[in-house]
């Protein structure tokens, strides 16, 4: 089971570190990262393995979303199933 973490906002030092640290706290393993910085806008998509998650998925989602708020970023965590059903027959 995997989830997609998307992070968009103004680039600052330590975004990746802080997001990864929160994932680690929940025992979510990061399996893929795609990121880019274009004219100060930071955009990252991270695939995390949530099959051995410690704690609730909704708590992870809330934690990352509030981390985003404190850093001026939009962070969303979405279960992979929504992408699978939408884009694959």
């Amino acid at each position, binding site marked *: 089971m995997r989830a997609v973490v998307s992070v968009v906002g103004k680039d600052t030092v330590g975004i990746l570190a802080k997001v990864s640290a929160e994932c680690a706290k929940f025992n979510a393993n990061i399996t893929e990262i795609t990121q880019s910085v274009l004219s100060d806008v930071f955009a990252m998509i991270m695939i995390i393995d949530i099959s051995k998650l410690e704690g609730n998925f909704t708590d992870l989602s809330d934690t990352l979303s509030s981390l985003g708020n404190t850093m001026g970023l939009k962070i969303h965590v979405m279960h992979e199933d929504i*992408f699978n059903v939408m884009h694959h027959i």
Partner: protein
Amino acid sequence: MINVYDIMETIRMIQDECLDIRTITMGISLLDCIDSDIDKACEKVYNKITNCAKDLVKVGEDIEKEYGIPIINKRISVTPIALVSAACKDANPVKFAHTMDRAAKAVGVNLIGGYSALVQKGFSAGDLEFIKSIPEALSTTERVCSSVNIGSTKTGINLDACKILGEVIRECAEKTVDSDCFGAAKFVAFCNAVDDNPFMAGAFHGVGEPDVMINVGVSGPGVVRAALTKYPDADITQIADVIKKTAYKITRVGQLVGETASERLGVPFGIVDLSLAPTPAVGDSVAYILEEMGLETCGTHGTTACLALLNDAVKKGGVMACSRIGGLSGAFIPVSEDAGMIAAAECGSLKIEKLEAMTAVCSVGLDMIVIPGDTTAETIAAIIADEAAIGMVNTKTTAVRVIPAIGKKVGDVLDWGGLFGKGPVMPLNTASPAKFINRGGQIPAPLHSLKN
């Protein structure tokens, strides 16, 4: 394998183009709550609703967070109350409305539908008293919605019921003048009502349905419009294809959310309503899709053709995306709940006659239309009869949800805010249909109802 392009597309649909699940509606049968003592019946109704739906809102909110997709409404529909209240002789059925309202508040759903009666072929015991109680029920409760089915392709149209509903709708508005006549916005008159509709105000849980079940209504006019903007010069066949592909994606999400909710609640999954349901939010309008197809303003000549194509393509795209389809399925055209429709009505491009034509090819009928406060009950009854005739002859669901703006006239506005939006008072034909309505009786079913 998920690729970045797909991820970005989904996120954009949700965040920028207002993709959402419009409603998860739990249908609950109240047939086992029937009792000749109304207080006992109400107690059973309250217990059954609060027991079945106790986790509905929590499960809905969890799914929202997990999939990152907003689920705007969590709602409940119940067995038409007229069937339950019929056993309670000489009791005031409004007690059931109060019980439903209390139960809805206890479980945290924003609307509960099913204060309804089915009188397409005549009134059974208690039906008349029940229908006459609707204005009191809607004006003394907050979350209860009501509907009455007055016709079908199989039975024809109950003109006596049309007449009474004209009076009921006026009374609903008169009793709720202080809240911009909102009572009338919670009532809908149907022809060919469906048993598994998840959308309010017309949702009720049909008698042939299982004891409890989950139905889902999807949305996404903004997504369809955004997809069309990428094809400014495509011919109309290509436009239909783009809508089908988009509808497929939207409906897949509905199927996923419905399956998940059903599994977690331990309740069978019923249907996905393949719908394009607008909201007053900017960019979430069905009218704007029609305008994107090439109309200067919604309501002009060509609107019916564009809507017919849209309605059909939504169904064709959605059919393969989910296991069972039901409800009303198609594009909704509520005036007050759609920014583009409001603008078109305000500038005079969209008129009631055009809306009536549009209802022959959309999912339901005349929806959320504000009419002058001095409109007679007979005229409202005749509007219902006209709509029912379109539904009866075309073997489709039609409905009327009009709001008489008591004390107001053409040019004024009723504003409820939120999902219900605001509507300008639209002019009607003022010639009287009173003699026709007062004839009463039953309009016979059309020839093509004889299919056996």
